[in-house]
């Protein structure tokens, strides 16, 4: 039986084409489905069916792509939501602590900061804490045993996007206000350089995860 005519290969390929989600989880899911169908084919062959009929029967028992793709996609979407929430719960407080440490060791600007900068710094801290707290609640929700409503993942993506835009935007404004800019801080000490680089990389990961979460929530909705 050629791959093009193999009902199992065709079925698995169609699921693979339709599903979207975190690569590792999706590959594992597709491999598991393929294994299950292979086992079912072997089972039917032991009962006396020829390879083609066995494969057709296994696919028939398994269910159609239209039936199963929404269920599998919901889990992929939920995993993406959990990934985003976990990233926020870990990264935002870590960056808050790292920046506080930079200021404390004197690699930041020399106090006293202007009232505007001080207010922005407090607003960044507040946004960070609120984002992490919201993410913690959303992370806890992903542990419920029932199918996770797709809006949870969409909301997680939105929280991540707002968190990164809010903190990033205010940080850029703070940086534009004198007396000290990020470039000066980076030149002033290695700790600041490391934290600036870590912040930029983390912002990139969070932004990507936010976009993926919102996109997968839409994909789940379209499949239902």
């Amino acid at each position, binding site marked *: 039986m050629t791959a093009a005519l193999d009902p199992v290969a065709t079925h698995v390929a169609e699921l693979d084409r339709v599903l979207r989600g975190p690569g590792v989880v999706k590959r*594992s*899911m597709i*491999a*598991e*489905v393929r*294994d*299950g169908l292979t*086992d*079912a084919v072997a*089972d039917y062959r032991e009962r006396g069916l020829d390879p083609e009929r066995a494969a057709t029967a296994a696919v028939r*028992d*398994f*269910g*159609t792509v239209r*039936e*199963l793709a929404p*269920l*599998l996609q*919901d*889990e992929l979407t*939920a*995993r993406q939501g*959990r990934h985003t929430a976990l990233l926020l719960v870990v990264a935002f407080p870590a960056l808050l602590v790292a920046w506080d440490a930079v200021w404390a060791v004197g690699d930041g600007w020399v106090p006293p900061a202007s009232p505007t900068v001080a207010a922005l710094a407090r607003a960044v801290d507040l946004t960070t804490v609120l984002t992490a707290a919201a993410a913690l609640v959303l992370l806890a929700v*992903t*542990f*419920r*045993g*029932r*199918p*996770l409503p797709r809006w949870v993942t969409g909301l997680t993506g939105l929280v991540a996007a707002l968190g990164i835009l809010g903190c990033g935007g205010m940080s850029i404004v703070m940086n534009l206000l004198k007396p000290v800019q990020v470039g000066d801080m980076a030149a002033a000490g290695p700790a600041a350089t490391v934290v600036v680089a870590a912040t930029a990389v983390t912002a990139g990961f969070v932004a990507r995860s936010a976009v993926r979460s919102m996109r997968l929530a839409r994909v789940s909705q379209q499949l239902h």
Partner: protein
Amino acid sequence: MKPDAVRGHLDGLILAVLESGPRHGYAIIEALQARSGGRLDLPTGTVYPALRRLERAALLSGSWSTVGGRERRTYTLTRAGRHALSGQRADWTEFSAVVDAVLRPAAGAS
């Protein structure tokens, strides 16, 4: 048994067949069919998303391992899963007793 009737109880059924030990996906399907006497009329593929959901809820732990010379994803009931299974059994016993009491023909009914 109709698929819609089974779906609402699929999680509990999967937890029950994993109570005796770890199994991979198709072995779980076989156990469900064997224990139901082949009366569970459900697309077998629906078991896989259910397994992922139960794993996400930390009621099962899943990992790839070599079984019978092949790489398989094997699932094990966690402590939380055993607790959830006990709860589902208690709920089902209460539910079935109530429904049975209502459905039973009343004394003197023709």
